[in-house]
C-alpha cells in the first residue's frame, strides 16, 4: 500500500496524496496543495508529467514536508496507478527532513480537521 495514490477530504477540502507509511489502523499520507509555499522545500508536480498522470492531477500541485496527515484507509479513495518511485522518494525525503528538523511540532494537518 505504500506508494498508493489517494484522494480524501481534509478540513473540507478534497486532497490528493501519496501513502508514505502504513500502520495497522492508519496510513500516513503526504498530500499536495494548489498553493506554492516558496519558503519551504517543496516538490512541484505538473499534470502533464508522468507523476502528474499517476496522481490524476488537474492543476500544478505542490508537496511540502509539512503537509501530511494520518488517515483511516476506509475514508480514502485509492487510485489505480501507484505513485512513481522517484516522486515517492522525493516526498518521503521532504517529510523525513521536516520531521527530523521540527520534531513534527509544526505538521500542517496534525490538528483536528475542523
Amino acid at each position, binding site marked *: 500500500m505504500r506508494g498508493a495514490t489517494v484522494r480524501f477530504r481534509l478540513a473540507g477540502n478534497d486532497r490528493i496524496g501519496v501513502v508514505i*507509511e502504513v*500502520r495497522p*489502523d*492508519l496510513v*500516513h499520507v503526504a498530500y499536495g496543495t494548489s498553493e506554492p509555499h516558496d519558503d519551504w522545500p517543496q516538490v512541484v508536480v505538473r499534470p502533464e508529467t*508522468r507523476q502528474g*498522470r499517476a496522481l490524476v492531477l488537474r492543476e500544478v500541485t505542490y508537496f511540502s514536508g509539512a503537509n*501530511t*496527515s*494520518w488517515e*483511516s484507509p476506509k475514508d480514502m479513495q485509492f487510485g489505480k*496507478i*501507484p505513485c*512513481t*518511485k522517484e516522486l515517492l*522518494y522525493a516526498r*518521503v*525525503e521532504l*517529510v*523525513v*527532513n521536516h*520531521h*527530523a528538523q*521540527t*520534531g*513534527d511540532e509544526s*505538521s500542517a494537518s*496534525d490538528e*483536528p480537521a475542523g
Partner: protein
Amino acid sequence: MVVATDEERQVLHLIEFAASGFGDPLLHATSVDDFDDRLDALTDSPEALHCTELLAPHMPLVQASLPMSAPLLAAAAGHSLEEAQGQVSKDPQRILEAWLDAQRQAAQLMWSTGATPVSEAPFAGTDLPIEIEKLIFHGLRANFCGLAIEQVFSAGRVIPAWLAGALADRLVVSARQHLRLLASLPGVSVDEAIVPDTERLDFAAIEARHQRAKAASQRSYERARARLGP
C-alpha cells in the same frame, strides 16, 4: 578454450533467465513513460528481487557476461551516447566502469570467507533510511537496465532509438546514484574524481536523522489515534 564449472553454468543459466524474464519486458515498452513504469514495477517484483539476490554473490561472472556499456548500446541503436542521454553526464563510460568495479569490491567484501555476515552489514534490515532506500532502488534500476541490454545483444534485438536512449540514460543516471552508496561503504575504493567526498554518505548522520524522524512520526501517529478514536 575456457571450460565453465557446474556452478558457473548454473549462474549463466540464471543470467539468461533473468535477462529473458525481467530484461525482455522492458524492451516492449511503448513510450518512455511506459518504460519507466515497467522499471518501477520491476523494483517491486519479489521474483526479480530474489533473482538479483541470487546473482549478487557471483558479480564477477555476471559482469563478464553482461555487455554493460551505454556507448555500445547507443551505437547499436545508431546514435551517439550524448544524443541518447542528453546532458546527464560528461563521462558515462568512466562512471559505468567505476560502478562495476565498486560492485565487485562490495560483493567480495560481503560474500568472501570470513567477511561480516550480510545480516550484520550496515543497513541490512528492512527499516532503511530513505536516502539508502533510494540509492538501493537506483542500483536495482541500473541492473535491470543491464539485463535489458544483455537481451538486446544476446537475442540480436533491434530497438528504437528512443528506447536505447532511455535505457542508456537510466543506466548511467542510476549507476551514478548507486555508486554514491557503494563509494561510502568502508572497504570500497572509488576515485574521488568520480564521487567526491561531498557526495559520499555520512551513515551516522543519516541514521541519527532517521531515528529522529521515526520518533516524530510515532508522536504524530499517537496524536492522530487519540484524535480519530478507536
